């Protein structure tokens, strides 16, 4: 039982990180109808900027600085490279984000090299014992901060004027325009929010004992099954999907280790993704879109 609780807690912590990343994907998709394959690289850049700023200032300032820089970069990319493609086919936009992803990955390699670096989590290697279960402080911090951030995002969408405008834009750009909403600003806002979530996720994805390395951008893409499972346009779905993927990976690495040569837990999120696509193509929490043809 202790091991189950231990694994379950680690799975929830990892799943919440995937949830934060998946939420970024979903907000961009809802806000600007863009599936941004470069989002993983924003996660990587966020981690590297925290790494650079940490020795020079307190942790909170380093985090705020990383958010400012990553949001700035996301806004530049959105305005200069993506905005002009709106209205073009989905394939064109997806290919553009793949190109941007490659560019950003190579920029990371050029600036910071190929090696691994230190961890950048807000807490160190310490642990807290609850009964017989050992809870790493890094995982506790991941859960606590993720819950607060997710609640804040939900509040933003439900209770603020900008959140409402963003939802209106996601629902219908024409209707939003007719109501006087600056749709362009909403595109930018969705990218900025996603970049903020990317930096938040990055500090936990590179939390002890994980480290900052160029592969962090690829690790972030494990959130993709989470989005499909939860629903491409569902904020709640992104979080639930993230938890499903995290728990599957961590619990599966123990309870499924004797099946499929020990690799089943690696592919299980993708199997679940395919099953959801077959049964509910719009995801567990996504909305079924109906188009008049």
């Amino acid at each position, binding site marked *: 039982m202790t091991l189950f609780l231990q*694994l379950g807690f680690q799975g929830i912590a990892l799943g919440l990180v995937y949830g934060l990343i998946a939420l970024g994907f979903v907000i961009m998709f809802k806000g600007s109808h863009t599936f941004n394959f470069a989002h993983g690289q924003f996660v990587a850049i966020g981690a590297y900027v925290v790494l650079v700023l940490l020795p020079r200032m307190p942790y909170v300032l380093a985090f705020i600085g990383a958010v400012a820089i990553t949001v700035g970069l996301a806004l530049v990319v959105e305005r200069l490279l993506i905005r002009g493609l709106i209205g073009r086919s989905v394939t064109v936009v997806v290919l553009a984000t793949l190109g941007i992803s490659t560019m950003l990955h190579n920029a990371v390699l050029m600036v910071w090299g190929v090696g691994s670096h230190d961890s950048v989590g807000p807490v160190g290697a310490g642990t807290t014992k609850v009964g017989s279960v050992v809870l790493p402080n890094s995982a506790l911090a991941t859960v606590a901060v993720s819950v607060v951030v997710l609640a804040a995002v939900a509040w933003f969408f439900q209770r603020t004027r900008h959140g409402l405008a963003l939802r209106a834009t996601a629902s219908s750009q024409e209707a939003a325009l007719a109501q006087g909403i600056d749709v362009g600003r909403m595109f930018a806002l969705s990218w900025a929010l996603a970049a903020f979530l990317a930096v938040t996720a990055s500090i936990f994805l590179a939390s002890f004992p994980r480290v900052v390395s160029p592969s962090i951008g690829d690790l972030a893409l494990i959130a993709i099954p989470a989005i499909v499972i939860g629903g491409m346009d569902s904020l709640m779905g992104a979080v639930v999907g993230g938890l499903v993927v995290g728990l599957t990976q961590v619990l599966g690495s123990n309870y499924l280790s004797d099946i499929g040569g020990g690799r089943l837990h690696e592919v299980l999120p993708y199997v679940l993704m395919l099953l959801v696509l077959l049964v509910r193509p719009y995801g567990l929490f996504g909305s079924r879109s109906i188009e008049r043809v």
Partner: protein
Amino acid sequence: MLKKPLTAVAVASLMTLAACGNSAGSGDSGTGADGVAMGPGVTDDEISVTVISDFSGPIAQGGIAGSLGVEAKIDQVNREQGGICGRKVVVDKRDTKYDPQITTQQYRAAAPKNLMVAQFVGTAGLNAVRANIERDKMPTLSASINTQTLDLPNVYVAMPPFEVELINGLTWAAKEAGASASKKVKVGFVTSADETGKVYLDALNHAAKATEGLEVVAQPTYTNADTDFTAQVNSLKDAGAEIVMLGVTPAQIAGIIGQSAQFGYKPTFVSSSGAWASSLGKPLKGLLDKYYVSGGYGTLNDDNAGIQALTKARKAYAPDAKPDNFEVGGWINGTVVVEALRKACEAKDLTREGVMKAMTGLKVSFDDILPPIDLGDGNSIVSFQSRINKIGADGVQEPVAEFFESEAAKSWDAARRK
């Protein structure tokens, strides 16, 4: 009437295509002004060799450092001796991103332009182009030092393979723990859930059986997608493993050792040389007092003629490069390339066949970086010796014992070859 000309055109096209296909092969480039037979990549002025490695993917840190070792050796020979056989040796670097598909493309592009592969990184990549290497008669030195690559045609491994390092590491740790008929010591093995992991596991299980007093209690596996090692660490801890052998890569070391510390689990960890990268020293600071590396070759902290020559050559070639022990492995392969090309030159045969002939029975001394080796027939393990190192303050390995070989490593090889 039309059919015959069309058939002729088709046949001619096929023959042209076939000829193009063979251009990546072992075709000679003729004879040089000095009477030396020249293969692909060889001219009167140059000998081109390729390094096929990961320069920007998941194991790029080791790939780049390993390549630097080859490049520094060849630069040294060019500067100090004017090259080999009166020709400057050039290195054609190809980035595989550790992806077998890209590896195949890069090999195909490099093959027609190079005499040999001075260093090839990646077991999966090597397997992807094994047929090409055999068809092209391409002499290839593998930096993925395991018996999977050693067994491939035309592929040479100039260092003790990781399996030997792991077996020697286990026998050393067992002795340190006082394992004997009267004192059982529990051991666990962590390996990847793939073919390479199975090979390491077989070697370790052989060593455990061959060493008195060892009991294997856990054998957890991992995949490259794993970022959390709670399951693996807890299975080792719950089984009471006092020695944990790590058949892993640098990508897993921080997670396994870091999470073990978090769960209050402090066994003796021993890995092969391929598992450690010096950059991990910082994030794991204070947690490495019971972690050891069994290395088949020396470290940058050694004080011997070989390491001194490598350090001097690296400073001349790449003064800003950060030291990493993988460059020692590259230096070893570079030294073998130089010796093989010299021997082939003496035989006036700088073709691929000439190089492979030169490699047969080639004896190379590395000025104490590792004991001298004999490449033999190219299909045998060149040495069963390794040395145990601990991790110093800067993440660089420091020896705690002299080179030694275990009977378990030799009996494992004998069993494997049957």
